């Protein structure tokens, strides 16, 4: 009984490991595995959706060219997928598909802007395994005095450079902005739609069950979700929000279940591991929502303590307190954003790197050692998956409870000072 379970777990883990790295570790014979590349490719958004390893699903692209003012709308299968990397062998209207994401050619010929054409010419189509050759390469180039890695492809002896993706920092720290707007339904957007649809169906059903089941014990899905809903209500909303808990409970529950659903969906094996809640733009929107709710419902007491803290000398307020408090208003949502992003992204990365250990061992010491490593690596990966399951809940909970704590600080009525001191101190951070 026990042995068979361990055996099953190992077989399952092996399968998992190889499907996850089928698109990564298999290629590059003789070159060694580019773990950093694999990890970053794994957490990145994409314009194709790989339900590893069987299905490659094309997604619709909606691209707006800022320079020409032209919209391009097509399915990403028009790029003609090659191999598992998410590369496309076709150029469509000046765009190419490099490692899953649409990129624009910096110096396209006029023919490239019209219709579509093949990158590799005649010999491009016969290598469907995707390992035999690489469509895209990269080289170090000096741009504005800084060395940067720039991707390019060669066609008819000429090098065509690709624009960088829009950077994490939106260009603040020297990253680049693309010269086109990408409104595509990407892998992340598609996963988010799936999770939202699932949530809507489940919660509509639960609401209906509460109506028909009134006065009776909960059953089915209702019974599964009720502990979580009651947990948020009793552990988060009521202690933090006092009398106003009913007003903010829907918001807190929405945030909690949205984040939880996305976190868990990203961890389901074979579904492509979409890193939705580990994408900065998603957590940014969540943080902005929290920021707006907190500050719009903020009362005079809250704003008074930020702008003109009572009981402190005026020079101290102007010199330190007010600036710090105003920065604090923005730091709170920023940490919300970063915390969720970093935790989920780190989880995805650790997992793929543990799996990559097998291929690092293969490159260093050959196949025999790689098989040995795979046992340890899979055990580690499965351990991490268990931890990440916990993290999925904890991060959803932390986001919710912190939002509630900030709401508490902003909606609290003023009361006797000797009593409120310690209370405020806890909520002010």
């Amino acid at each position, binding site marked *: 009984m026990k042995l068979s379970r361990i055996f099953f777990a190992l077989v399952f883990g092996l399968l998992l490991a190889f499907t996850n790295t089928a698109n990564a570790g298999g290629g590059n014979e003789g070159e060694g595995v580019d773990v950093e590349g694999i990890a970053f490719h794994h957490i990145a958004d994409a314009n194709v959706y790989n339900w590893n390893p069987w299905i490659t699903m094309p997604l619709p692209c909606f691209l707006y060219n800022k320079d020409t003012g032209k919209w391009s709308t097509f399915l990403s299968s028009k790029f003609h997928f090659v191999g598992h990397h998410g590369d496309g062998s076709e150029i469509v209207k000046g765009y190419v598909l490099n490692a899953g994401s649409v990129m624009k050619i910096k110096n396209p010929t006029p023919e490239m802007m019209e219709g579509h054409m093949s990158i590799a010419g005649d010999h491009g189509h016969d290598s469907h395994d995707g390992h035999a050759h690489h469509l895209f390469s990269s080289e170090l180039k000096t741009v504005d005095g800084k060395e940067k890695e720039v991707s390019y492809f060669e066609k008819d002896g000429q090098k065509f450079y690709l624009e960088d993706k829009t950077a*994490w920092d939106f260009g603040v720290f020297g990253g680049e902005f693309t010269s086109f707007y990408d409104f595509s339904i990407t892998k992340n957007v598609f996963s988010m739609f799936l999770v939202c649809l699932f949530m809507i169906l489940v919660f509509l059903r639960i609401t209906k069950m509460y109506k028909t089941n009134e006065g009776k014990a909960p059953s089915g899905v209702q019974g599964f979700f009720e502990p979580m809903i009651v947990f948020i209500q009793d552990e988060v909303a009521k202690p933090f929000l006092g009398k106003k808990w009913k007003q903010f409970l829907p918001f807190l529950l929405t945030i909690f279940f949205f984040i939880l659903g996305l976190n868990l969906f990203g961890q389901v094996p074979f579904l492509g591991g979409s890193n939705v809640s580990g994408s900065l733009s998603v957590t940014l929107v969540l943080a902005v929502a929290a920021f707006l709710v907190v500050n719009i419902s903020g009362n005079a007491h809250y704003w008074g303590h930020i702008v003109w803290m009572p009981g402190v000398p005026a020079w101290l307020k102007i010199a330190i307190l007010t600036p710090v408090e105003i920065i604090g208003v923005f730091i709170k949502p*920023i940490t919300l954003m970063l915390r969720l992003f*970093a935790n989920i992204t780190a989880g995805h990365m650790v997992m793929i790197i543990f799996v990559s250990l097998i291929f690092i061992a293969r490159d260093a010491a050959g196949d025999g050692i790689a098989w040995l490593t795979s046992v340890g690596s899979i055990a580690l990966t499965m351990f991490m998956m268990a931890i990440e399951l916990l993290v999925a809940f904890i991060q959803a909970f932390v986001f919710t*409870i912190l939002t509630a*704590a900030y709401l508490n600080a902003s909606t609290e009525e003023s009361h006797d000072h000797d009593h409120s001191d310690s209370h405020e101190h806890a909520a002010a951070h």
Partner: protein
Amino acid sequence: MGSLAGIGMGLAVIGAGIGIGNIGAKAMEAIARQPEAVGDIRANMILTAALVEGAALIAIVMAFLVG
């Protein structure tokens, strides 16, 4: 440049590690003293740990961006 950023990240994580370790230790003590308050203590422990983590996260992201 990359290695410098790495050292910075490591330093930030040391701070957060000490902080979260203290929180965990004290929470365990508190639970041992008053096992009936375990729910409250756990919720507050996670909340405080998240606040400590926030500072380290900012440092790590800055290290990423600058490095």
